[in-house]
């Protein structure tokens, strides 16, 4: 059990403890269960409002968006920063007073009392249930995914634990438990995100240095107009991004209930300062970290081979079949591997030691699109589970030479430069073939590239460890700084989480390569 798991256990116990502590209020009456007895002060109101509004998007989506779009993604943050104060200043005091006057405990009940009609509940309730259902589902999924990634336990169990704890404290303490757990979570979120931001800045040598490095990937990533530049800016997306998180969640049920549960209407005034302060500190951070991840974790996701700039790079996407002579029971090790060039240098220099081999030395991070591999080969990729490949290995026994399999399993790995004896074979010194981990017995060892060069990728090697890959490294970029040790803890992204990855990744690469 690692330390992250212990922290999670403590966290879950604390959340459940809050549920138990608020049991008395939750069981008092309907107002006690649904609104916490309208007893919340400004700090809890504001931070609860913000943490429940942030959702899993801020940790899973915002960084990913910034990773693919650069500073363009901060348009979402620009609106989000003002979302809290807009809510509190426009709705907060009014909702608190009117809901108490009308005796309303929920948003729909408020509408029903405010505009008396039997159709209000009939129309609003199904809409709210449908929308909130999917909203809550995404939060549960985000919680389960996060727990899975931190602890490594299977997703189904991670989801069960996350949902179980949430349901437990909610049923015990009602809204008061939700508010206090949200308050604690907001503080944890803020500390954690600032911690990550500061660590990121230290790792890249400061914000300016990081921006300079990102600008070398694609200068447009530093602009607010998107990776394709001002010429192709999407103004509608920008306007929507600003509005969606500013006025977009005015009146949402979980926001309204936060207003209704305030101790006094005037709480909204003080809460607005907490909300804006929290947002200023928290909201830009995941976007900036996401942009800087382009430097720290350049292969966190991989562009598809077809999206690579310059057709010549595609030539390194070798497609071959391997048939291994050794039998493992009935299971012949049939592997279909592909190699792909992912272009540009991939963090040469001192990077964490290879997990699989224990070597400690200069290494190159490469992308590994794999078409077919034996399960144990995934240990080479740092995976725990079998890949979700579409065809079973027995399909490959029938020798279908022209079947073109799209890579479904992607990951990244560190390859020690010493494992790449074929480097510098090409005439062009900028291009080096780095052949790799694996071997198999390729029937064809060369593949012609459109630019006339040949890539010789793999030849002899261990016949039983197949995870073919290659990378072309380019020496045109300055050698990056020391990679942080934290990357050592980051394993390959689970294959099932890479399904349907964003084509827009290609946009982060320069157009003129």
């Amino acid at each position: 059990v690692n330390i992250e798991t212990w922290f999670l256990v403590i966290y879950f116990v604390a959340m459940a403890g809050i549920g138990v502590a608020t049991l008395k209020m939750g069981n008092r009456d309907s107002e006690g269960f649904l609104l916490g007895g309208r007893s919340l002060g400004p700090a809890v109101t504001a931070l609860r409002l913000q943490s429940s509004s942030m959702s899993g998007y801020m940790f899973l989506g915002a960084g990913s968006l910034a990773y693919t779009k650069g500073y363009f993604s901060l348009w979402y943050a620009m609106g989000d920063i003002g979302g809290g104060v807009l809510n509190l200043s426009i709705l907060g005091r009014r909702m608190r007073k009117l809901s108490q006057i009308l005796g309303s405990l929920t948003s729909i009940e408020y509408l029903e009392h405010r505009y008396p009609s039997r159709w209000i509940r009939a129309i609003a309730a199904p809409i709210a249930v449908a929308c909130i259902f999917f909203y809550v589902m995404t939060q549960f999924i985000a919680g389960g995914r996060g727990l899975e990634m931190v602890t490594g336990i299977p997703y189904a169990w991670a989801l069960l634990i996350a949902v179980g704890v949430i349901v437990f404290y909610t049923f015990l303490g009602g809204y008061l438990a939700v508010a206090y757990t949200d308050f604690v979570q907001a503080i944890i979120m803020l500390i954690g995100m600032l911690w990550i931001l500061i660590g990121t800045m230290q790792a890249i040598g400061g914000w300016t240095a990081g921006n300079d490095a990102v600008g070398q990937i694609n200068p447009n990533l530093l602009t607010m107009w998107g990776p394709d530049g001002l010429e192709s800016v999407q103004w509608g997306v920008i306007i929507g991004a600003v509005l969606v998180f500013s006025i977009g969640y005015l009146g949402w049920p979980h926001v309204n209930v936060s207003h209704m549960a305030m101790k006094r209407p005037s709480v909204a005034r003080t809460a607005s300062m907490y909300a804006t302060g929290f947002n200023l500190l928290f909201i830009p951070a995941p976007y900036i970290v996401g942009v800087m991840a382009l430097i720290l974790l350049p292969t966190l996701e991989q562009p598809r081979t077809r999206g690579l700039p310059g057709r010549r790079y595609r030539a390194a996407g070798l497609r071959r079949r391997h048939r291994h002579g050794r039998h493992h029971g009935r299971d012949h090790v049939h592997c279909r591997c592909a190699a792909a060039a992912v272009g540009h240098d991939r963090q040469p220099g001192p990077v964490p030691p290879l997990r699989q081999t224990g070597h400690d030395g200069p290494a190159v991070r490469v992308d590994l699109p794999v078409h077919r591999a034996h399960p144990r080969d995934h240990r080479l990729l740092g995976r725990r589970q079998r890949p979700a490949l579409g065809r079973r290995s027995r399909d490959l026994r029938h020798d279908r030479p022209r079947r073109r399999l799209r890579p479904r399993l992607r990951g990244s790995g560190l390859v020690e430069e010493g494992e790449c004896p074929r480097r510098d074979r090409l005439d062009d010194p900028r291009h080096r073939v780095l052949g790799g981990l694996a071997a198999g017995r390729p029937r064809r060892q060369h593949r012609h590239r459109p630019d006339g060069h040949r890539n010789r990728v793999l030849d002899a090697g261990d016949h039983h460890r197949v995870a073919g890959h290659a990378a072309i490294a380019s020496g045109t970029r300055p050698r990056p700084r020391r990679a942080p040790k934290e990357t050592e803890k980051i394993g390959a992204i689970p294959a099932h989480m890479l399904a349907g990855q964003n084509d827009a990744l290609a946009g982060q690469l320069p157009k003129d390569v």
Partner: protein
Amino acid sequence: MFGLPAATVAIIFGIPAIWVIYTLVFVYLSRGWKAENVAEDRARLPGGGDESGGTVASANGGTA
């Protein structure tokens, strides 16, 4: 500044500054809200008067 284009710097610092100003203006304009607390406390007391009478009007009119 910070290795960013001037337009990027202007946007990512300018828009949050607008929100800060908005918050400060809101806090200033709502400085009288605390006075309502006294009236509400008085209304909550037994025999303190009709709670809903005057507050509906004030609830419909907010500062911000």
